[in-house]
């Protein structure tokens, strides 16, 4: 690094920024000083980039789906082959500004705080910034997104000490902020479809998500539509198949915990089944897994290693709690049918308590255990 960026140099205030870009380009020649002399070549950059790669299929599909929903709403031709690239391009241009805003605002704050704390810039926001545009409606005004990102990075992350210290998932906090501050822009049937000011809806089209419709007479709410994801919704949340691709990557590499995913699915199925049997809903219980943000939240949000439960037993409880709570909200709250966001934030809040109980039980049991010698 050039001397002017070092302490005492004129441009020291840019130290963390320069360091971030430098270490982005090459692994620095820092050697081990304390403790063990060799280290595994894994670092957080690698882990975070894998998360981004895992979420990429959902993002790419989401962009195409934005184009498709637009065509459906305006009554344009939707046959697959001739339209696949134009749809994608349309969606790409719609989603790109969301990415630019999410990264510019979030990384700006991250870099500033890294400099204030004299630390290196943490890579955590690479993932958060990639996920935020995927969990908001495509029509969200950019200034709202900017405010939400700033709020979540500042008050959900930096005040606690940065990535690794936060209690709640920052991407979800950004979404929760939007939801409670600007409910009009975050729900109903207008926000999910990208429409130009001159364009008119075709007769009978509603842009409401299948979740809000509870599977009623909207086209594109059959099992396969939901599984493939050709339905209205937040940008990246609709396609279960794209999300499963990502899940395979992060499960194989061990970044995400399969225990959280499995137990979350189990929780949703159980409550969904009870709801269906008891007659609270007509939605088949397995459809709960395909609706709304459940799949996206289970794979990319609930498994966040920082905010999820730390212990293995805790992960089972934590995941189950999230899945069960999500579907419970869907069953009993007709006003706001999407329970996943709040279920995960609630799970994040409860995770330390769950861990505390698990660890306490473990310590008690260990004290009682008897040994031969």
């Amino acid at each position, binding site marked *: 690094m050039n001397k002017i960026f070092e302490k005492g140099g004129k441009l020291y205030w840019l130290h963390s920024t320069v360091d971030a870009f430098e270490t982005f380009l*090459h692994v620095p020649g820092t050697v081990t000083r304390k403790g063990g002399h060799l280290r595994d070549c894994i670092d957080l950059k690698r882990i975070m980039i894998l998360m981004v790669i895992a979420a990429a299929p959902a993002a790419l599909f989401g962009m195409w789906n934005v184009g498709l929903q637009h065509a459906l709403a305006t009554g344009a031709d939707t046959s697959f082959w001739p339209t696949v690239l134009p749809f994608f391009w349309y969606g790409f241009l719609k989603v790109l500004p969301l990415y630019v805003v999410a990264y510019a605002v979030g990384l700006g704050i991250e870099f500033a705080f890294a400099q204030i704390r004299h630390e290196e810039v943490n890579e955590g926001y690479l993932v958060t910034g990639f996920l935020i545009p995927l969990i908001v409606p495509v029509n969200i005004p950019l200034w709202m997104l900017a405010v939400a990102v700033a709020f979540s990075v500042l008050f959900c992350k930096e005040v606690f000490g940065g990535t690794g210290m936060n209690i709640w998932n920052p991407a979800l906090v950004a979404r929760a902020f939007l939801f409670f501050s600007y409910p009009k822009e975050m729900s109903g049937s207008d926000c999910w479809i990208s429409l130009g000011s001159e364009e008119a809806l075709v007769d009978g089209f509603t842009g409401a998500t299948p979740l809000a419709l509870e599977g009623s007479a909207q086209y594109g709410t059959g099992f396969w539509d939901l599984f493939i994801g050709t339905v209205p919704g937040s940008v990246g949340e609709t396609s279960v198949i794209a999300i499963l691709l990502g899940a395979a990557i992060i499960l194989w590499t061990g970044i995400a915990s399969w225990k959280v995913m499995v137990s979350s699915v189990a929780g949703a199925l159980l409550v969904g089944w009870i709801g269906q049997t008891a007659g609270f809903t007509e939605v088949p219980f397995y459809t709960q897994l395909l609706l709304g943000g459940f799949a996206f939240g289970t794979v990319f949000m609930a498994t966040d290693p920082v905010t999820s439960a730390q212990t293995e037993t805790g992960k089972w409880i934590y995941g189950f709690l999230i899945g069960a709570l999500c579907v419970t909200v869907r069953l009993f709250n007709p006003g706001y049918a999407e329970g996943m966001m709040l279920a995960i934030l609630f799970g994040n809040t409860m995770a330390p308590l769950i861990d505390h109980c698990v660890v306490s039980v473990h310590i008690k049991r260990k004290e009682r255990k008897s040994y031969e010698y």
Partner: protein
Amino acid sequence: MSKPIVLKRGLDIPVKGAADLVISKTIVPDVVAVCPSDYRGLNPRLLVKEGDAVRAGSPVLADKKNPEILVTSPVSGTVAEFVRGEKRRLLAVRIALDAAQQYEDFSHSGALDADGVRDLLLRSGLWTALVQRPYGIVADPAVKPKAIFVSAFDTAPLAPDFEFTLGGEMNAIQAAVDALALLTDGKVHVSVNSSESAFCKLKGVVLHSLEGPHPAGNVGVQISHISPIRKGETVWTVSPAALACIGRLLMKGRVDLRRKVAVTGSMAIETCYVQTLPGMPMSCLRPFVGTNEDSVRIVSGNILSGKNAGIEGYLGAWDTQVTILKEGTEPELLGWIRPLRFRQFSADRSYFSWLTPWKRYDLDTNLHGGPRAFVMSDAYYRRVLPMDIYPLYLVKACLAGDIDKMESHGIYEVLPEDLALCEFVDPSKNPIQAIVSDGIDLMMKEMA
């Protein structure tokens, strides 16, 4: 022997440079050093002056708090120099060797009782081979430990083969084990990793068999599976190499610390064993380092928990391994983003080392990243720690300096070396061993 304890969690780091089973030479240094830092918990008081003549077994240092505990000279010669650091802290006592070695006489007649053994070990300085847990300090002579543990195999990367280095000294080791058994109310536990081990022939001990990757050979891990240390309990551990020295003392009546030391590591010109003395200057190993002295790191001990001695440093008092590694000061262009990176090893599946389990790597000391807060959850670290504790909780308790939490999360059971693999796999590059070591220091201060 009881049923084998099979440990699943752990990691054998596939690094190049294990020592061939040959003794390539005998190194008789001109000078050896006695370093107080090799004896954890010892507060040294000098007993010699520059120019004093000493014999092998003559006291050089005593503990200020417990003057019975002596550190003795491993050789006969003249006290040449005191090496001091900041605030005149004593770093090393350099002793120039005589041409002919003379030994203090520690012979005894008849069978020794417990007090006799204790007295003999204290006078000869070999008491410092007894490590007391919790905390891993030099054993307190006033304490009667619950048991004494010996790990008869080493699973650390490139570790010496005790069968090779000590297989011929089983008589001495038997004598040492018999004597140490008098010092405890419990048993002497010896852990082996194969029923073929020469240590299986030892009498009067409890044999345990352990299987699994590193850290299965760490005595701390073995204790936690055999009889975990609880609050208020004390156990002692002793290394097999030290047992051989104690055995020689008992049988011949002299302090003879010569030992076979494995010279290992990918930068060693020849990987083999040498016969030498503790406190040997690393400069004696120049023939193994060659011309690239500045670009290597010379570690006394193993890769994970050894001390960076450098060419100016010395072999640790109870170390039986030297590792010569390449310093990783070269930046690696686009390192983390390159998909394959075949030359690097990672235990994480986001690289592809798992596809080539037979491969041995030429690893350097690069940190491969920058320091970050802990991001991965406890399980990420637990998969390399076969103990019944939550490593991340313990480390965070140490960071917070919370005595109660450290206690309940198992600080009494671990030494930094037991969590060395957690440090190795940590993507956040935290100095976990240093954190635990500071935690142990805090415990000693607060619980004293």
